[in-house]
């Protein structure tokens, strides 16, 4: 396996899960570019990110604010 960028990793993961919505993927991409690669998540940020992902999941057509 060659060295992949975050974008390429997401693309590869998505090829295995084609039903994942754009909103969820966009949210995750944003998190991967910031919060998720800085420090291990504490309980508060873990809850916040989980809720945002679930929110995006429940509203897959919403425009990504980020």
């Amino acid at each position, binding site marked *: *396996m*060659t*060295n*992949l960028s975050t974008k390429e*990793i*997401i693309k*590869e*993961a*998505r090829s*295995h*899960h084609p*039903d*994942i919505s754009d909103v*969820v993927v966009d949210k*995750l991409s944003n998190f*991967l570019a910031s*919060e*998720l*690669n*800085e*420090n*291990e*998540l504490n309980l508060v940020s*873990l*809850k916040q*990110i*989980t*809720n945002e*992902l*679930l929110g995006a*999941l*429940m509203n*897959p057509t919403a425009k990504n604010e980020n």
Partner: protein
Amino acid sequence: MKIKKIKISWFRGAADQVELDLNLKSLVLYGENGAGKSSFVDAVEHNINNGRINHLAHEYSGKRQEKAVLNTHIPKNQNGDIAITLEDNSTVETKIQNNGSFTVVPAISDISSWDYRRTILRQNEVADFIANTKGDKYSALLPLLGLGHLEIIAENLRKIERNLSIVGTLDAKRAEISKTDQKGKLVFKNATKASIELDLKKLYKTYCKKTPTAETLPELLTDTLTALQLKITHQSIEQKRYSSFLELSKLDIKTNLGDIKASAIKLGESANPLIAEKLNVLRAATSYSEKNKDDEIECPACGKPVSSAVFASHIKAEEIALKEAVVNFNLHKTDISTLCENLQNLKRILSHDQIKDWKDKQDRTAVSFIESMEVEKVRNACTSEIQAEIENKIVSIIEKAKKEVVNPLPDVAELVTDKEKLETLQQMSRASELKKKVRDAEELIAFMSTLQKLYREQIRTQASTVISTISADIACMWGILHPNEKIEDVKLCLPDDIDKAIEVGLKFYGIDQDSPRLTLSEGHRNSLGLCIFLAMTKEDVNNPVILDDVVVSFDRNHRGMVGTLLEKEFSNRQVILFTHERDWYIDLRAQLDPKRWEFKTLMPWENPEVGIRFSTKQYTFDDARAFLPLSPDSAGNTARKIMDAYIPVLAESLKIGLPYLHRERNDHRMSHEFLEKIASSSTSFQIKRDGTNYEPFNEALNDIKAADRLVVSWANRSSHEFNIVEKEASALIDACEKAVARFTCTNCSKDVNNLTNEKSGFKQCSCGYIKWKY
């Protein structure tokens, strides 16, 4: 970026300001134990680690390590100070208050970007890496390999994946779906989706009095239910009364109670929070077990010491069992919820006017129990006592209601059945939405899991590349330290079978070994630890390399090779070596290139108010002087030891030959034999006093002879007869020091063996003022 100077005052062992001037070179600093060498290492660590010194982080040092970082005898009006000047003449200054708080100016400097683990190696840390578990090795190395952020991402994705299931209450949703499916089967038997839709359309036609057109199924359902409710409202008193009894008779509270008991038995006395907490503990234990692959662990599940693999399987089984318990708990909650729904309906039906006369004839206690019942309290605490009371008081009333519907009113019975069908359909519609939510959440969880897997593959791929580079360096350095030894192919490796693990592999006499701990001696393990540190630090070309007493467990041969290793592999780096090994210090003085290396010695420690002091002498004789007042024998003996260490090394470099003695006698030659030989080489030692011509250096030879006489007489007396007096010891030390100093040029301060002219067969100092013809 090299270090130019380190100044400290009232920090650790320092009293008034003491300055370590490195002159931008590499350095060997010798000092006896406790002389204060490590205070300079601590000063650098304080700067790198933002005020934290790892070996001082313990329960006694105070919150800010204030009880340890400052000299115990610091005057009240003084601060602890550290000033480190770098190659570019920038100085980072740290002022430490009595409470340990500190200020650093400038706050961001080159030093704060150094990584401790690639800058400083201390004696106690040499073996740590080898002794660590695979998991700890992985955690320690990954950030140094530049892959820490990928590990953080993978770990965060794992946390989110687990949390999605909890926050999304997927287990509760699955339980509700399962309950609705059961009810659907009960009401619609095995009817297909199409026939249920057809049924709904018929009901719509019946109650709404029109043919369904473009409405969606949920709209049809809502409209039909509304029409049916309206019809119920317009029933005759007799029909309404029958409806109420029919509804009452269908409240299967007895079955509800049975379900609750059954699910309660499954669940036992466990409670969800407890289970959730236990799951967290298990997760932590799983992570712990992954880090302890090689050790036996006392298993909390069976209480016996088991291997980590067995422990992991016990934990897995416990996790599955607890997850089942969570499912059971959710089922139990759903059963209670169904009961509460039926109890609400019971209260509502009993309040109907049309059955008031019937109600008045029932058991007063039972009726008032139902009417005063707070259903939410039952939902929150459905105890066995409450369940028994419900069974005793309510079930009999429902049984009596059943008797009232023995002779059915066909229209009404149909109405009630249709109502139940429509309400079940409504629940099924909601369950269908829930199913979609659960499916979506499961898909997201699977997506997160795939992402994690891909990040782990990335870590493995990238780590393999870096590790192979570092392994090549480790193997090269090991080869220098251990030439011709049958321990080969030393390397870091990523085990194939597990993630988050790095191990050190090697070949021991041709046989692959999974861990150095299997076959290597302590000395060899430490040597390997040093090679790994140096290979890691070689990757980072900017900072100095600081080695604090790292060769303690090395024998003389291997210790000697460390100098060779540093000369070969770190000639372009600043290396700062601290040692209390006098013999090694003397060896290094002869071995290392004086153009690149400085050599300094510390005076033996006296007390906290005097603090750290540099010796003005280069030959460590101050160690001997420290004994003078109290123990002249020790002073004399130490002087002899210094001579025995220094003179043979010097003699070797000056190519002074002695007849071979058999075996160990050859290795144990004393300084006297060399001094005698040097003194007798009357024409070898020369000085260019007039700046043009060399002449025999007779003053030096006389000093060497004088020292030899005292070594033979007084030094031997101090070692064997213990009757040397202070004046004699002092004279011995001075004579030895004077003799040794003769080999250092008074003009250029370099030793006579500084430069070699192989062709003409002589050695000389840097400026050529003194030389030795061999």
